[in-house]
């Protein structure tokens, strides 16, 4: 069996720890990439210019040469978005993978110009029957004082493979927030990289993942702080049922010159079965003295005391468990202001916890 190695950590550790990269069967790559038609864009677009041509796919990290070149050479969806004003309305881009459109290779390039504001929702969904493949790149450039919120929902089915590389360049006083809802894929592999170059550049990443059956998640988040007083916050909350497995690799890297920068990383994994597995590598790298970096990581089952308390209020164990998992996710779900999307996500959580 030929394998491909993807999602390398920025700094290696012992091979025996099984976390430097992920090895996957090369057969998961589709032989042929057809056109992809099922994409819809809805919402307020008067302040966002949309084009369908992008030339540059280069990434600092990404998932690895094979997957990056696949996007570079074979992308069947390209979107270039330029935010040119302030808008309180969301724009939603939905990709639906089905039998006629099983393979999506997409490249989305977003530029938030100076002093602009926007929320962009990107959804990847599959219908139940298709064995789909998604490999995409999202690149974001946030110029001075821009404010951009990106919500990514991965709701691909358990037969599909989902790969995504995200790269952000954040300038002075710009603020980029991500909310990532990761439900899907047999394999769901994410590479996220933020380069906070500007003074006061700010980046928040809030992630929920919920794994079941034999799902595998590999989340590799890298934040490099270069600007003075820049800040990054990584919050990852997840739950794993059945035989699901998750790798979380989070790196906050304080580069020389990022005086008074701050970085916080919190990763918590609820294990809802004896077979579920959580592997975490929360890294702090520091070449600057005047900074503050913290990380915390935890794993374990739902607390017996909390469970008992809720059950003593008349809930059955299963319901009490669901409530507790949802409570863990609530802070992140509340960052989504779009009520329809919020309801959709809550319903999906409900169904997946059943």
């Amino acid at each position: 069996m030929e394998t491909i190695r993807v999602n390398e950590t920025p700094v290696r550790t012992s091979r025996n720890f099984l976390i430097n990269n992920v090895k996957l069967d090369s057969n998961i790559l589709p032989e042929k990439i057809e056109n992809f038609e099922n994409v819809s864009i809805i919402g307020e677009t008067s302040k966002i210019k949309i084009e369908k041509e992008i030339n540059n796919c280069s990434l600092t990290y990404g998932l690895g040469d094979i997957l990056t070149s696949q996007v570079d050479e074979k992308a069947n969806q390209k979107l270039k978005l330029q935010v040119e004003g302030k808008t309180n309305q969301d724009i939603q881009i939905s990709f639906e993978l089905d039998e006629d459109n099983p393979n999506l290779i997409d490249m989305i390039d977003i530029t938030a110009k100076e002093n602009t504001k926007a929320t962009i929702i990107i959804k990847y969904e599959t219908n139940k029957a298709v064995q789909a493949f998604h490999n995409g790149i999202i690149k974001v450039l946030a110029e001075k004082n821009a404010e951009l919120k990106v919500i990514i929902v991965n709701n691909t089915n358990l037969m599909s493979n989902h790969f995504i590389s995200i790269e952000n360049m954040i300038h002075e006083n710009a603020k980029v927030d991500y909310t990532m809802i990761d439900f899907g894929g047999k394999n769901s592999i994410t590479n996220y990289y933020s380069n906070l170059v500007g003074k006061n550049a700010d980046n928040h990443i809030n992630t929920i993942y919920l794994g079941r059956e034999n799902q595998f998640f590999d989340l590799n988040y890298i934040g490099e702080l270069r600007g003075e007083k820049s800040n990054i916050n990584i919050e990852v909350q997840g739950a794993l049922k059945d035989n699901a497995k998750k790798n979380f690799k989070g790196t906050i890297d304080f580069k020389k010159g990022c005086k008074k920068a701050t970085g916080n990383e919190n990763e918590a994994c609820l294990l809802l079965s004896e077979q579920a597995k959580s592997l975490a590598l929360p890294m702090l790298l520091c070449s600057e003295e005047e900074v503050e970096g913290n990380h915390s990581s935890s794993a374990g089952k739902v607390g017996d005391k909390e469970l008992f308390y809720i059950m003593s209020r008349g809930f059955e164990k299963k319901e009490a468990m669901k409530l507790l998992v949802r409570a863990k996710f609530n802070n992140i779900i509340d960052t989504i202001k779009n009520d329809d999307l919020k309801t959709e996500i809550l319903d999906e959580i409900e169904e997946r916890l059943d």
Partner: protein
Amino acid sequence: MSKTKINDINRNIYDIKNKDEYDFKIKKGLTKDIIEEISKQKNDPEWMKEFRLKALEVYNQLELPTWGPDISELNMEEIATYVRPKTSLNNSWDDVPEDIKSTFDKLGIPDAEKTSLAGVGAQYDSEVVYHSMKEELIKQGVIYTDMETAVREYPDLVKKHFMKCVPIYDHKFVALHGAVWSGGSFVYVPKGVKVDIPLQSYFRLNSPESGQFEHTLIIVDEGASLHFIEGCSAPKYNKVNLHAGCVELYVKENAYLRYSTIENWSKNMLNLNTKKAIVEKNAQVDWVTGSFGSKISMLYPMSILNGEGAKTEYTGISFAGEGQNLDTGFKVVHNSPNTSSVVNSKSISKNGGKCTYRSLVRINETATHSKSSVSCESLMLDDISISDTIPVNDIRTDEVEFSHEAKIGKISDKTIFYLMSRGLSEEDAKAMIVRGFAYPISKELPVEYAVEMNNLINLELEGAIG
């Protein structure tokens, strides 16, 4: 503004160089002939000679680590792996040659033996030159001797345990150790015997362009307890020296072992050491480690909690100054139910030094109801130094409590302000904070080492922190 300076470690005591005089020094390099010659010189039994040759084979097959500090400057063709000093093993300091005795005198070993130790082993280059233990421990059946004597006199015990806890396949430098090991200590504490006063082995490497490969094997039998202290140092030379020792600890049911290390190698030393403990039912091993010396260290003591209710604690501090890259940490594998581990690690980087905390906590499927708590803090004293934290947390079952916390940063302005508002000068406030930072570690050390560590973190009131 007057600023505070944290001095480099005063190395005057450790840097005493004796003349490079020896009884025998193997030629540099690593070949089958060299290994056979070492085996001959050491009068090995046949099984040990075969073992060395097998280890050499494995060494040649294994790759260098693809992670961690750059150790490409290590050229085994330039290292003599065996240097026999001009003396045999003695049990009286009076019989140790004057220049060697004087070195250990200056390091305070004979004095410590008189006042606070139950036994002492002293190794000079590749061989142990002094070994002694209090009479009452001998009567209780405690064995504390050099490894060569153990191979000869307790062959069954040694064969059963030697490089079984740390197999030669673990990594390249363990294989190297297996091929060229020499010296080190063997300790056996019989069932139920409590050794209340510590035993200490001190390892001194004097010879330039050479390596030290001592092997420490400790078996603490059921219900017994021991505190073992390991110290190491070397004078500085211009070329690389290598230390690739190996420590194997077997802690049987209900037994307790505390293993303390003060590592103060010279700044031309590559310290690629391996330490591992197998901990059985309701037993406990505690590691206390202070890493101050060496140019490069790669050192990650490991506890394997095999028995139900087994426990381990790791308390460690690293202090990296100019030109130093100290990559240290801890590994623990929980294999049985109700096991627990507690990790408390601190590091201080200054003058361009680099400290890395690297770790593994693995809680296997079989280790239900286990607990693990990890805390690591790093203090940066200037903006040319580096401090990294690279922990891996591998949790394979749900019935566990696991938490990990890490902090990185400089001395907090708020804390300085608070202390100054209580009447302390800025310098005293900073000094107090640094001492306070190191205190949780220094309080775990034997008192004479705690004093030494405080001296190492010596504060002067003129100069610069940050």
